[in-house]
């Protein structure tokens, strides 16, 4: 980078034909990566959240919930900011619609984390002891999926650099494959937990059981959304 950064004075602002620099719209790549990063950090907090739930340490659960909501807001702000900097007049190698859809799927990760944590805290839910180990493993595998999605999204600037082809595109394809495998794992784990819950459900209060199924479903959607990020990336690569 240049050693001496320019001095912006009012005079230079006036006396210049700086329109050449105005033809470059702000790159959406950095904001999309930041957004994904916020969504991943939000999902990661869910592990801590459920650990405290299992320990019935409700103060810490509440603190964790606050962090989740904050991160979800952070993601929301980034989403709005990016939307506003993507006017229809931009000419981009990836269609605007594809970027917005990618953003929406990323955002749903944070939304699911917020929903599930709100549900659990609001109803002071407990995870049946026999399921706890498997449930935590299930949560963390879903977070793994989000992490892999973030890793794929981190390659987005390299993809733009290489025009979405060649060695870099292959690398992203393999990342997406790994992401799919993790998501397969979460599906298998989800089925197992549901079976476990089914086997003990008659001994539990029916309303709690209904909501436990809901919690499992919402948590599993984190992995689903991560997988869909992979699908969106494949669409972007196929152009």
């Amino acid at each position, binding site marked *: 980078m240049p050693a001496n*950064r320019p001095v912006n004075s009012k005079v230079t602002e006036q*006396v210049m*034909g700086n329109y050449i620099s105005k033809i*470059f719209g702000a*790159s*959406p790549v950095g904001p999309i990566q930041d957004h994904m990063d916020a969504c991943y950090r939000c999902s990661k907090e869910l592990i801590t959240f459920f650990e405290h739930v299992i320990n019935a340490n409700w103060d810490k659960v509440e603190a964790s919930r606050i962090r989740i909501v904050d991160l979800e807001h952070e993601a929301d702000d980034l989403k709005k900011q990016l939307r506003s900097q993507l006017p229809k*007049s931009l*000419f*981009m190698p990836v269609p605007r619609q594809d970027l917005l859809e990618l953003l929406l799927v990323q955002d749903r990760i944070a939304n699911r984390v917020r929903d599930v944590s709100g549900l659990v805290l609001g109803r002071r839910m407990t995870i049946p002891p026999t399921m706890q180990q498997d449930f935590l493993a299930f949560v963390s595998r879903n977070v793994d999926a989000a992490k892999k999605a973030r890793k794929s999204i981190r390659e987005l600037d390299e993809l733009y650099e290489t*025009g979405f082809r060649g060695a870099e595109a292959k690398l992203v394809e393999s990342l997406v494959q790994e992401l799919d495998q993790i998501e397969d794992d979460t599906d298998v784990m989800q089925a197992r937990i549901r079976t476990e819950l089914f086997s003990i459900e008659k001994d539990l209060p029916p309303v709690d059981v209904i909501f436990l199924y809901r919690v499992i479903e919402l948590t599993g959607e984190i992995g689903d959304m991560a997988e869909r990020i992979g699908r969106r990336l494949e669409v972007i690569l196929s152009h």
Partner: protein
Amino acid sequence: MEHQLIYIVLAAVFGLYMAWGIGANDVANAMATSIGSGALTIRQALLVAAIFEFTGAVLAGGEVTSTIRRGIIDSSYVIGEPELLIYGMLAALLAAGTWLLLASRKGWPVSTTHSIVGAIVGFAVITLGIESVDWPQVGTIVASWVISPLMAGVIAFFIFNSIHWLILVRPDPLVRARRYAPLYIFVTVTLISLVTMFKGLNHVGLALSTTECYAVALAFGAVVALIGRWFVLRIPVDEKAERRFHYATVERVFGVLMVITACSMAFAHGSNDVANAIGPVAAVISIAQSGVVGQASPVSIWILLLGGAGIVIGLGTFGRHVIATVGSRITALTPTRGFSAELAAAFTIVFASGTGMPISTTHTLVGAILGVGVARGMTAIDLTVVGRIFVSWIVTIPAGAALSITFFYLLRWVLPG
């Protein structure tokens, strides 16, 4: 002819002002990409711009200057009254200068080329009659305004795609970047030297044979390529930057190439835009000195020197701030992209200079950037702004014409006839 000294002094002052304005304002668009990409510091850019704008103006600015001087107006219409042409050319200079000042204050994207051509055509139509304009020539000039951004765009598209296929999509982009960089330098330098020697050098009094031209261009290209190779091979791999962005070192290799294209761009800009300032000056001086219109002697070297000096002064006074500000905003144009766009633009402009076509450097560069965009090289281009820049060339022509007509009557009223 009386009062010839007044005319010559006025022409020189107006021309110098115009050259100063071009140096202060327009050079930034040519140089900013190199600073934005980090290839050059402000100080280095100023030095490069000063040297190459000047050499471009002096070595290759003759053809376009001739076009502005006597290619637009059919001189047989002013034989009886040479003063008319003097007033007209002075008015055209004042009009383009005022327009440049106004537009840069308001931040409008205007082209000095379009305004000076509009100004000359405007006063000729009003004061000498519609037949006095060499319409086929003006038609060719207008066509070149459409062709030059297109041509730059197409060339940029192919250059960027070549970088893409030779380097970026490969598993070992850095090795390949170091291998091909000298080749790109060789092609760039050889082509631009060739066009300059074939088309521009007779104004400096150097006449080389075709074989000599090829020999000199190839040798020059090879020498610069070898120097470039030395630098490219010594670029260290920045591990930290590589982790964040795997193509960081590849981009730095192209940073070296951008130094070459920055020189080319400054040279090209000097060769074409100097004419906007000194074309009318050359016309005024040749008429005032001889009293005869349309004398066929080539543009004298000292006028080219005057134009070159004016641009450098403009650079030194205001240009550095403008370059700094524009440069800090063009970070989107990374070296691989900047190289493709600048090389395409520089080649197109030098080619136009060689054929005597006064074109807009900015429009050509915008065309080249769009070409890279079509090759999926740019993350985002704002088409509204691009549209505004291209629309400006239509607005600039009548504006330049109206201003020059006003100044023409003003001058005829004020100046001794």
